[in-house]
């Protein structure tokens, strides 16, 4: 048993005792039919599959990716520690070479959770892929990571966390934001100056199906991945592009998803959304698992394909446009990044404003975020971030914070400058909280 080489590590955690509210898409029942299908197929018996149970992530794991206001621990439930911990177990299994690939089929999901957290948005509180990526960097020294987000919704949380990091390639295809939550994810959201082009957004026409998706993958995504040469590929494996999904309007089938998993050959896949819990998830998950385990998935076909419509010409047209436009953007990214960096002033600060809406709790957040690039040209130093946030309508009332994030490999002078800014803000005392995040250590210090 032990000497047999397992292909796929599977962390299955359906959280049958966790929900957002009783009739919410994120309720106990969500993975019930998937569990039934996987058990009935006998997938857990396959010699190619090794089962893992999740563990509780540590607070440090969560704090490498997040700054919670007033704290991450006050915002999450035990379930979030388990689903994040499930991803870490998957990461360990792959990095220790116990398995070739792993799939964390866990909930609650995470790709709408941004760096700063005031509550739940898009069913997410903490970003389980980002937590895993930071863990991989801390524990295993992995540098270049690609995250391919195959959820129908734009993973705006993942984009937010990876936006300044040129070593993380974030590719998301999704239903056009003008027609679906969260409304973002357009081509020009391509990363801050140093990381320009390593955020690749591919907004698709509603009703795009297997054909469009695979054309896009074969002619664009595969080439970008080939060029970026990541050490690891993470798949945010949302399943709501399925034709039967009640929240979105796409036409992808279980075969389409399984073939994609087969081509992508992600090192670690993590479940995200997907709310057609009876008609899609049992089949899509079976397909992905078989494909990741290197087994025949050709017989995984939904019993009812009557809801599957035709992909029309507009879908193909959009795919062709994206292949050209996003290809140009990505392959010219280094030149463009250098241009943008040169345009920065002598303080080497790049800033943006954000309005963030938390649909689940009705929170409205205003953010001013600034990237302070290293002015001392220290080797490998990526400087620090400052974030001024004010949120109205959180479960703790209205709250505000000034946050400083010290990046990995931050040089001593940048670290000092970061603390100076935090202390200055503390003295000024216009905000409720002044918080310092040390990403490498996974600590958030309240000044």
């Amino acid at each position, binding site marked *: 048993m032990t000497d047999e080489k397992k292909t796929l590590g599977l962390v299955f955690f359906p959280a049958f005792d966790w929900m957002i509210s009783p009739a919410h898409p994120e309720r106990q029942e969500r993975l019930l039919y998937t569990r039934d299908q996987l058990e009935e197929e*006998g997938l857990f018996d396959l010699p190619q599959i090794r089962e893992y149970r999740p563990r509780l992530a540590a607070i440090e794991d969560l704090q490498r990716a997040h700054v919670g206001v007033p704290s991450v621990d006050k915002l999450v439930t035990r379930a979030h520690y388990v689903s994040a911990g499930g991803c870490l177990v998957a990461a360990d299994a792959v990095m220790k070479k116990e398995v070739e690939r792993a799939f964390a089929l866990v909930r609650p999901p995470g790709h709408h959770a941004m760096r700063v957290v005031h509550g739940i948005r898009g069913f997410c509180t903490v970003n389980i892929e980002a937590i895993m990526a930071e863990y991989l960097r801390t524990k295993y020294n992995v540098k270049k990571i690609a995250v391919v987000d195959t959820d129908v919704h734009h993973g705006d949380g993942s984009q937010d966390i990876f936006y300044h990091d040129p070593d993380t390639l974030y590719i998301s295809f999704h239903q056009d934001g003008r027609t679906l939550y969260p409304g973002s994810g357009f081509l020009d959201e391509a990363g801050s100056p140093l990381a320009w082009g390593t955020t690749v957004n591919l907004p698709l026409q509603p009703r795009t199906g297997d054909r469009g998706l695979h054309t896009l993958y074969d002619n664009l995504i595969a080439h970008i991945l080939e060029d970026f040469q990541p050490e690891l590929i993470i798949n945010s494996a949302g399943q709501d592009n399925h034709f039967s999904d009640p929240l979105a309007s796409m036409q992808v089938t279980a075969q389409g998803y399984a073939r994609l998993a087969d081509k992508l050959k992600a090192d670690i896949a993590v479940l995200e959304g997907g709310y057609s819990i009876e008609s899609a998830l049992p089949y899509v998950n079976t397909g992905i698992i078989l494909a990741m385990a290197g087994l025949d998935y050709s017989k995984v076909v939904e019993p009812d394909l009557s809801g599957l419509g035709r992909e029309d010409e507009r879908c193909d047209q959009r795919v062709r446009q994206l292949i050209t436009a996003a290809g140009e953007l990505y392959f010219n990214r280094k030149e463009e990044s250098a241009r943008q960096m040169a345009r920065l002033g002598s303080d080497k600060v790049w800033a943006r404003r954000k309005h963030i809406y938390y649909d689940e709790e009705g929170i409205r957040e205003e953010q001013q975020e600034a990237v302070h690039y290293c002015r001392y040209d220290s080797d490998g130093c990526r400087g620090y971030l400052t974030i001024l946030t004010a949120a109205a309508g959180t479960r703790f009332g209205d709250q505000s914070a000034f946050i400083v994030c010290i990046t990995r490999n931050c040089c001593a002078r940048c670290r000092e400058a970061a603390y100076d800014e935090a202390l200055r803000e503390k003295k000024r005392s216009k905000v409720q909280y002044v918080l310092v995040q040390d990403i490498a250590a996974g600590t958030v210090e309240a000044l």
Partner: protein
Amino acid sequence: MLLGLDVGGTFTDAVIIEKGQVLAQAKAPTTHADVLEGILNALDKATALAGQLKNLERAVISSTIVTNALAEGKLPPAFLAVCCGPGMNTAGKFPVAPLQLKGCVDHRGKITAPIDLAPLARANSIAPAANAAVSCKFGVRQPLLERQMAQALLQAGRRKVFLGSEASGELNFIRRTNSAYFSAQVCDLFRTFCSRAEKALAERQIKAPVHILKADGGTLPLAAALEQPVEAVFTGPAASVLGIEALGAVDEERPGISLDVGGTTTDIAFWQGGRPLAARRGAVINGYNTAVRSFHMRSIPLGGDSKLSVSLVNGERFYFVGPQRVGPAAAVGGEAATLGDALIAAGYISFGDAARSHKALAALCPGLDIKEEAKKIVATAVAKLRGVIDEMLAEWARQPVYTVDDIVKGTEFRPRQLIGVGGGSLGLIKALGEAMDLPVSIPQGAMVANAIGAALARPTLSAGLRADTTEGHYIIPESGERKPLPRPFNRKAAEELLDRWLHEQVATWQLAEQETEVISAEHFRTIHGYYDTGDIFDLRMQLKPGILQKVAGFSGEVAL
């Protein structure tokens, strides 16, 4: 008065027990060509000791008949028809290439494609083999397709058709299919054995019901066992575990590990609350997964008579223990040194002629300190046992967890005692206890533990009930029952229905009245388009398993 009969690899044992007293124990050589002969020899020896078998309540046979018939692979193939529906490619997952039929049921028990029986009619005309098995993916949620297949086969003249959904009410299409298939394959042979056994016992004026022991450590009357003959596989290890339980060796307060050390193999089992832990998945037969329930056990080729060998790598000596058996130990007249001899020389046990043990070991390590080398050999064997125990612990730790509560509370198994039984190699368990820093207990009278286990096992019977209120029916897969839901319906009503069904079975098979218990229960509210549509209840219950009584003493005669 209870009679237990156990067929082992070398000996067949018989015991007679009354009110916790073992009145007679007897052994006869196992007769491999016809195991019944050895069973009757042992029985006759035991009855000669105990006198008349007055007030005999029950006879239980734990035999190797099904295990051996399946392992030898000489049984003619049975016919298998399946409805696989969408999903994994099942090629190579079944012992024979099945006839694949169109027709499928989905995870909620909805028929998503009707069955086409035409290929079945064609196959029937080509190869009208006697027995058949039929199985449908999600047949446990909706047995109609399986019933249609079975009916067509019976009408075409097949004697017996086994249904996947009756083999087990639990999910796992491949395991259910294989259970049903092996039952179909072994059914005729097992029926012949049962009727011969019944006749031979009747000739001996034994009128008490005759039960068979199953892999799950429970018994069933012969007629009931014939409904699922595959369950009579692997009864030896189950009997051994029940014997340990009956001998009262396990401290209920502490989780423990039992090791039954024989001459050739050691059986390892886990205990919690004074009961052996059941395996999460079914047994593997001839390399195929089945739904046959058994204990969480492992057998390894390591015992008192295991062969010792040594190899030299860069001047360093490495010892090996097993897997072959050479015994008996040199101390009791064997040719070569065995693990038993090493245990004697290392000072863990004393039996036979210690000087002969030393002499035999000297051949392996000429000119070295025998006691020191013997300790190294014992350490090698202990390391091997620990390796298997660690694997079993790891396997247990990978049991699925479905709720946050499971993770937070933890469902770990941490052993706090070792229990050793079997032969003259108990020293091995002492050595293991030292290495693992665990207390060791060794019960008395373990010579015929298997037969004692068989004699005292309770009947076992388990079943599931699933109710989907949206759909308006409940189903007990083991019975094939699918009936409209009573109103109002809730968890309590579900338990009552299933409890009633189990007690009906108790009455039908004339089993002793026994309480039922809930093994697992799930309840989900189903929602469609943001509104409540109903509830799903999934319940499993069983007759409380275990032993009828503990052994309080040995008052009778022994014929070994």
